[in-house]
């Protein structure tokens, strides 16, 4: 009952015309970001982050979150119509979505993707509404040892869930942790690795690193000659799926929603992993698996639902625990902190209007996206007709503006360039940059909680094993680490290896 009352408070905030406007703007920009290849939600959010400085925290987070889940909707459009994933999480939709389009069912595929995304997104918000407040209340019991244990578990979970190998993921996370130590040490005041560059005293920001690794890195490795594609534009009347297609999509949407939300709670590229796993599950459960790759409805409905549900699930640890599960939620957290709102267990009590306004805005945003994506598909298709050679310089310009405007610092832009080069080489070596960003984000909290724990216990590291919550978290981490090491030593092809092979196979096609 209390939750419902709070949700009503949220709706009273989310339905205010000014908040609604920024929510709509976020959804529109997010859809465009999702549609355009080469620019992801992270770049979109980073570019518009400085624009939100003049807004209050609620409007800012509503708009930026709209970009995030809007991009998950928009990503399906290019996948279905051009076989180019606008988003990494839409890779699986390319296969059967494009095959459906080739069979003249592009409109139906777009409609199923949009409706599936809406159902999954709304399901995710309902579960978030139910579990985030009690989780936040539980997290109030956390002290430095529990936070240390939780962050270790997060890193191990990231490595376990990763489709690349354990050492590769942990290595990337370690580089991120190391980058996070640059700047003034909070406990002793030492300058670390700042090399007399004043701007480095505050450390390396998330935005230049994330935009460089993901935005610029992607552009550097994508020559315009490689981006070609024929755009199929469905007419409005062709958008409605037939009864059989609705029937075939119902269970995949339901399964994708649940699977996506659960994976969304875990650290890493959850929205990408969820769509791959959903596709694998649907193929496994299908009566006619041979139809997959040739236009199976379940191959569109499942992954599209899963990636949207995962993007909502990722908000649970961010809002309730103050822990980002990936680069996008890290930047969203940074946006809240810029506005004086600290995400975490206290958020729901200290800023109920922000918390519940944000949650309610996601219900509204999902409806807005459904209304935006279907009737305006023709408009978004026209955006795809802009040649890539005109588009990528524009993206670079927005990357520069976005990074520079956060702190008015040209050093940040140089960091972005360096990270772009690093991102290019990481791609060449098959290393995933996402754990690096996550490591960078959690590094200050991890170091502080670890050192505080040791100071609290006068140097006895057993403090981590004498407190029940910390012990339980370390136990889970140990189990996951053992499972990963077992697969590593035995060189056994488990589900993650198969997932990596599937990803590599799809990327190569």
């Amino acid at each position, binding site marked *: 009952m209390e939750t419902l009352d709070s949700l009503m408070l949220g709706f009273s905030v989310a339905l205010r015309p000014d908040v609604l406007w920024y929510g709509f703007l976020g959804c529109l920009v997010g859809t465009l970001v999702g549609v355009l290849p080469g620019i992801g939600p992270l770049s979109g959010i980073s570019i518009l982050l*400085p*624009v939100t*400085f*003049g807004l209050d925290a609620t409007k800012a987070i509503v708009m930026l979150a709209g970009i995030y889940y809007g991009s998950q909707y928009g990503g399906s459009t290019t996948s279905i119509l051009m076989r180019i994933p606008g988003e990494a999480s839409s890779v699986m939709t390319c296969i059967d979505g494009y095959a459906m389009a080739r069979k003249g069912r592009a409109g139906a595929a777009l409609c199923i993707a949009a409706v599936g995304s809406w159902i999954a997104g709304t399901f995710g918000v309902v579960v978030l509404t139910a579990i985030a407040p009690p989780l936040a209340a539980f997290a109030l019991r956390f002290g430095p040892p529990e936070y240390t244990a939780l962050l270790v578990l997060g890193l191990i979970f990231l490595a376990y869930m990763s489709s690349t*190998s354990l*050492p*590769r993921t*942990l*290595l990337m996370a*370690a*580089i991120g*942790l*190391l980058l996070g*130590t640059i700047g003034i*040490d909070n*406990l*002793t005041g*030492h300058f*670390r*690795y700042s090399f007399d560059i004043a701007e480095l005293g505050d450390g390396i920001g998330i935005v230049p690193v994330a935009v460089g690794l993901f935005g*610029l890195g992607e*552009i*550097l*490795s*994508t*020559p*315009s000659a490689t981006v070609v594609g024929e755009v199929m534009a469905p007419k409005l009347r062709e958008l409605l799926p037939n009864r059989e297609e609705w029937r075939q999509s119902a269970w995949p949407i339901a399964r994708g929603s649940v699977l996506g939300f659960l994976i969304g709670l875990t650290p890493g590229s959850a929205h990408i992993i969820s769509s791959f796993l959903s596709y694998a599950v649907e193929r496994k459960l299908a009566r006619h698996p041979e139809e997959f790759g040739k236009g199976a409805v379940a191959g569109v409905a499942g992954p599209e639902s899963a990636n949207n549900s995962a993007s909502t699930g990722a908000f649970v640890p961010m809002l309730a625990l103050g822990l980002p599960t990936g680069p996008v939620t890290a930047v969203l957290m940074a946006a809240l902190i810029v506005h004086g709102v600290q995400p975490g267990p206290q958020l729901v009590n200290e800023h109920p209007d922000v918390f519940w306004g944000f949650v309610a805005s996601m219900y509204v945003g999902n409806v807005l996206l459904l209304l935006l994506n279907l009737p305006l598909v023709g408009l978004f298709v026209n955006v795809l007709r802009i*040649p890539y*050679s*005109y588009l*990528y*310089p*524009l993206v*670079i*310009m927005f990357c*520069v*503006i976005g990074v*520079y*405007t956060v702190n008015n610092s*040209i050093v940040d*832009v*140089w960091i972005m*360039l360096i990270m*772009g*080069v690093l991102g*290019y080489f990481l791609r*060449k*070596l*098959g290393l995933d940059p996402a754990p690096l960003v996550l490591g960078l984000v959690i590094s200050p909290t991890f*170091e502080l909680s*670890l*050192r505080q724990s*040791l*100071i609290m216990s*006068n*140097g*006895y*590291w057993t403090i981590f094993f004498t407190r029940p919550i910390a012990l339980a978290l370390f136990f889970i981490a140990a189990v996951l680490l053992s499972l990963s090491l077992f697969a*590593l030593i035995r*060189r056994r092809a488990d589900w993650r290896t198969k997932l990596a092979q599937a990803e590599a196979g799809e990327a190569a096609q």
Partner: protein
Amino acid sequence: MTPRADHIAGSAAIAAALAVLAVSGDLPFGTLAFPGAGMMPKLICALMILLGATLMARGGASAPFSDIGWSDLPHAVRVLAITAAAVALYTTLGFIVTMSLMLFALIALEGRNLVAAAVYSVGICLFTYWLFTVVLKSPLEQGILGF
């Protein structure tokens, strides 16, 4: 032995960790009861060396380094050089001049019509400047020319 992707990645990680350790000399490690500013970076460097060595030891399973395609390297170098030049001039010449030149150079290098590239570059930059400065109230860099 054929060098493979993981051999290169692992050795680069070890080299980076050793370089960081080399410049960390003045950072105190401290004690367990009061950890110093150097404890965390040094522990992470040790972890990086361990993980880098593991990656190298298991490198046989990764793709041969010679199989990695570098056909996009000229594009990457061109884009990077032009962007770096623009960044170097950004605070001096301001947003409109620098970004117009950057867009024009990038599009011209793709072999597009020069007049169209010039019109597109200037038009986009003027629109963006107006959008950020007037509509979004988030002023962009002006430079010595005052715009």
